[in-house]
């Protein structure tokens, strides 16, 4: 479905690579590594937002719909929750249902700054799922949440993904527990940014 052969990616210094990644339909993949090791950069490349790298990004399916849930919710602060969802094509009469699905009720008319981080992330998740993606990119969906909220969020993501087995997942996290709960396979990005194990090789080591 999507293949990435990254030779190197640098800003002022090398950040990532070499690295190979293949994502198949329904595959649930996690990228785990310490902060600053280039995980978000990799997600940006996979999403097609960052094209300034050495290597190849091959999309084998022509109309591949990718939803990207950023680490910060990135809702438009001057639009209400409902309007933020409408902007990605959610019909007016569907908004409440979309929000209920992520455990939110009665917040459609609020502005993002009136929401807590946990709630805003849920809206961002609802927005990501609303575009009916083939591939969902999650960038640290649980970071900066208090433990209880993080636990609920993880369960929510898991159950929503279980209901949609066709969605491929690429999850980025610093917490191996997220990877264990949400993904089937795991790639560890090391500090050295190189010597990354391919998912097939890693599977035996980290599955379960």
């Amino acid at each position, binding site marked *: 479905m999507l293949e990435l052969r990254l030779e190197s990616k640098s800003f002022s210094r090398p950040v990532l690579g070499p690295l190979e990644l293949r994502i198949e339909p329904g595959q649930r993949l996690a990228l785990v590594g310490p902060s600053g090791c280039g995980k978000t950069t990799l997600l*940006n490349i996979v*999403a097609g*937002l960052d094209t300034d790298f050495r290597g190849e990004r091959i999309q084998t399916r022509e109309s591949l719909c*990718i*939803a*990207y849930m*950023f680490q*910060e919710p*990135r809702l*438009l*602060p*001057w*639009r209400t929750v409902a*309007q933020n969802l409408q*902007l*990605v094509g959610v019909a007016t009469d569907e908004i409440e249902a979309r929000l209920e699905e992520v455990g939110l009720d009665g*917040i459609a008319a*609020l*502005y993002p*700054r*009136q*929401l*807590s*981080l*946990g*709630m805003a992330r849920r809206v961002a998740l609802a*927005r990501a799922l609303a*575009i009916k993606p083939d591939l969902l990119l999650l960038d640290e969906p649980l970071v900066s949440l208090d433990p209880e*909220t993080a636990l609920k969020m993880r369960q929510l993501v898991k159950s929503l993904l279980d209901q949609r087995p066709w969605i491929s997942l690429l999850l980025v996290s610093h917490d191996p527990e997220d990877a264990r709960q949400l993904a089937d396979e795991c790639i560890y990005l090391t500090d050295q940014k190189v010597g990354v194990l391919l998912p097939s090789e890693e599977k035996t080591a980290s599955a379960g």
Partner: protein
Amino acid sequence: MITRLRDYVLVLAVLAVLWQVLAQVLNDPLLPSPAQVMATMWHEAVRGDLIYHLMVTLRRVAIAFLFAMVLGVLWGWCMGRSRRMNRLFDPLLVLFLNLPALVLIILLYVWMGLVESAAVLAVILNKVPNVAVTLREGVRSLDPELEAMARAYRFTLRQRILDLWLPQLFPYLMAAMRSGLALIWKIVLVVELLGRSDGIGFQLHLAFQMFDVSTILAYSFSFILVVQLIEWLLLQPLERRARHWQAAGEVQNA
């Protein structure tokens, strides 16, 4: 709102009283009292002159304002978005920013003749660089994270303009409009004084030749009133609507 209006009226009343007292003490035709100025305003209004020249000036202001805003926004957008455009246009911008309004007006009258298009063009060219500079700052401060989000979710051009860019550029547009309106009407008066046979600037020119301070003040105040009305009836409601989201209530807990 009521208290603000009350303060406004109060300040004006105090100023008017001070002025009246000063005018009576000096008793000089070069400083007419507020009552005399009001009488002149009324007289000119009844004669129809005031409204006619006010409308002529207002039309020039409106045309120049519209063109200056559109061109300035486009220019500022290009310079804010692209470093190359910025390098290319920056010398031109500095030139126009520092070219005295009067020089531009004289040059255009000399080259094009004392015609309406020269007058309006002079005003536009005076204002465009100010709008461009303000907008360039605004465009440079656009949030790259939201930009990436809009790309990831494939916002249409219309959505980007209306939902992404316009709300972020709004404070810069308001600043450009406010300073624009004030600057443009002042330049329009100079343009009219130098080369037109109608408009408030022309009337001021006539009054100046006869040292008729009362008429000068009557025409000036009437236009200040118009600008104030534009501020109250157009700009402020627009601002209130656009800033609605910032006034929304406090953060909720999950």
